[in-house]
């Protein structure tokens, strides 16, 4: 997958990753051969429908779910080959933020402890030092450490909890953060605050982000490049502006069309995609989108489309790309 190489040396590259879940005696093909690369300092957005494998991919990157095959290279090191202590060390450099901020905080621990936890795990013995770091990040995400540290998660709103999660993931100065739908559970009015905060933190700490979301507008607002997933496969990758302006994969096009626009003058287009997404237990042969694709033909069911460069920096996996 050399053509996916980005401008600079990638901080993270995912190579032909396959992740499956056992379900009774069936197998869920959650991620089926995805390759990606994220450059240092870049934000890669990852969009796709619910259940298409975004979270699984995110977790596999962090080795929270071991891949069946494929490799995850982080800063030149193969995470998939790592075990135990080495992996735990590596985890300080790679962090994760979840969709549901309240669920990702232990309801029975105080905020101060939650945010200090990574430091304890990393072996920072000095309590005063820990305290200082906790204060620093909590202030950085806009929370008053003195007010917040002694309280329990349930005393906070979703937006505040997400700040706490962000603070927790920043406390070890990581290089890379996987944001797994960090704003989906938040209200419109709070969402913007968090998106702004993420952008700010990114600039301030020089972070690289893998930003997962199903809301295209949200993804576009924060990403340099966007990858579109469908049923465990990558459909399209490209620089945000370019991809949104000229989607090459029919699925990307469909997604763009379906976004409701808050303008009464834009009449919503009659929905184009027919049918329901197929099950990842028995994914369709060939192109996985073919069952809902208006352009599908014989070839699509026979042959798995490879990612091809359709425009500079923009890759699509389609036999019949748009325009």
């Amino acid at each position, binding site marked *: 997958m050399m053509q996916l190489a980005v401008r600079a040396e990638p901080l993270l590259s995912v190579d032909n990753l396959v992740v499956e879940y056992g379900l009774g005696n069936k197998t869920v093909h959650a991620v089926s051969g995805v390759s990606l690369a994220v450059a240092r300092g870049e934000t890669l957005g990852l969009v796709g429908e619910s259940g298409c494998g975004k979270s699984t991919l995110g977790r596999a990157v962090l080795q929270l779910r071991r891949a069946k095959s494929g490799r995850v290279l982080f800063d030149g090191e193969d995470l998939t080959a790592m075990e135990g202590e080495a992996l735990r060390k590596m985890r300080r450099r790679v962090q994760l933020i979840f969709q549901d901020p309240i669920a990702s905080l232990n309801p029975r621990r105080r905020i101060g402890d939650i945010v200090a936890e990574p430091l304890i795990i990393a072996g920072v013995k000095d309590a005063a030092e820990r305290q200082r770091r906790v204060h620093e990040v909590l202030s950085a995400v806009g929370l008053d450490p003195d007010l917040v540290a002694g309280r329990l998660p349930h005393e906070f709103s979703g937006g505040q909890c997400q700040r706490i999660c962000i603070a927790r993931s920043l406390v070890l100065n990581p290089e890379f953060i996987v944001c797994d739908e960090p704003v989906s559970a938040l209200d419109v*009015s709070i969402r913007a605050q968090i998106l702004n905060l993420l952008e700010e933190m990114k600039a301030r700490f020089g972070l690289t982000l893998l930003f997962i979301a199903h809301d*295209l*507008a949200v993804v576009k607002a924060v990403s340099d490049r966007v990858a579109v997933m469908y049923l465990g496969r990558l459909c399209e990758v490209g620089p945000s502006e370019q991809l*949104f302006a000229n989607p090459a994969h029919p699925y990307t096009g469909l*997604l*763009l069309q379906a976004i*409701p626009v808050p303008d009464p003058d834009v009449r919503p287009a009659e*929905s184009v995609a027919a049918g329901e997404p197929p099950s990842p237990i028995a994914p369709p042969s060939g192109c996985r989108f073919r069952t809902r694709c208006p352009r599908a033909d014989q070839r699509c069911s026979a042959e798995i489309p490879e990612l091809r460069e359709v425009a500079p920096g923009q890759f699509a996996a389609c036999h019949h790309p748009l325009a």
Partner: protein
Amino acid sequence: MSNPLLTVEDVAVDLPTPRGNLRAVDHVDLSLDAGRTLGIVGESGCGKTMLSRAVLQLLPKKAKLTGRVMFEGQDLVRLPPESLRRLRGRELAVVFQDPMTSLNPVLTIGTQLMETIQEHLELDAPTARKRSIELLAAVGIPAPEQRLAQYPHQCSGGMRQRIAIAIALSCEPKLLIADEPTTALDVTIQAQILDLLAREQRRRHMAMIIITHDLGVVAGRADEVAVMYAGRVVERAPTRALFKRMHMPYTEALLAAIPKLETAPHTPLPAISGRPPDPTRPLKGCSFAPRCRYADSRCHEAKPGLTSAEMPGHLYACFHPIQMAEGIGA
């Protein structure tokens, strides 16, 4: 115009909680004519669901409701339970937010569809079954006959929501309340479901209330929009009027905070600072005042009432309405 189908008059809902009384809905007035669509928008916890449950008389047991909910000339609040039960499902139907949880996981789809039909239309089982199949076909479910014997978990989210809609439509209700019917769904499916609702509404000449927190959802689909904040309706207007000439700073801020596809990546969003007030500790003044950039001392002292704007049917509750706002953006 003739008598509206539904009028909500001065409805307030109080919930006793351990932390004190929680006013979930704060003196709301609404009305809806037959065949029309009302959109209710607002962020989480602002009382949208409580309002819709007040209409359906499905509030939690400990909730206290004041005001009147007139439906076809009857006050639902004072209706005896049995009459209310006959009305529900038959005249008043509802679709909930989450299709994963709103269908009973242990009953077949057929049972769940047919029981409503049999309950209200007093049809025998074969007829009810036939009708169920028609309904499923109408909401676009392939092979409806087989589906009847299946359980909800065997259907995808979109399909489940269609089934929920089929149930809601089964007795040809006069009013359909859709409480965030697509929030849990993907954009592509969301579009399908919203289209389906619109189509069925037109075909059956139902009145419909769509509740959502996504302004985009109501923009193209509602005749009238009510914006709620902290239990109150803060602005109400015909859809076009609202989006063109909003008067309420909250509506404006809400719209502005949504990321747009047109804007370039990494553009900072105009976020609304702070968060909604704690509903158990109501503010003396305008509840949006602490977050409002126009707020002055008056806003903190007194609650603004709903005032009519120049456009007919446009109401807002603000001391400092935005005058010049034209279109979207800030």
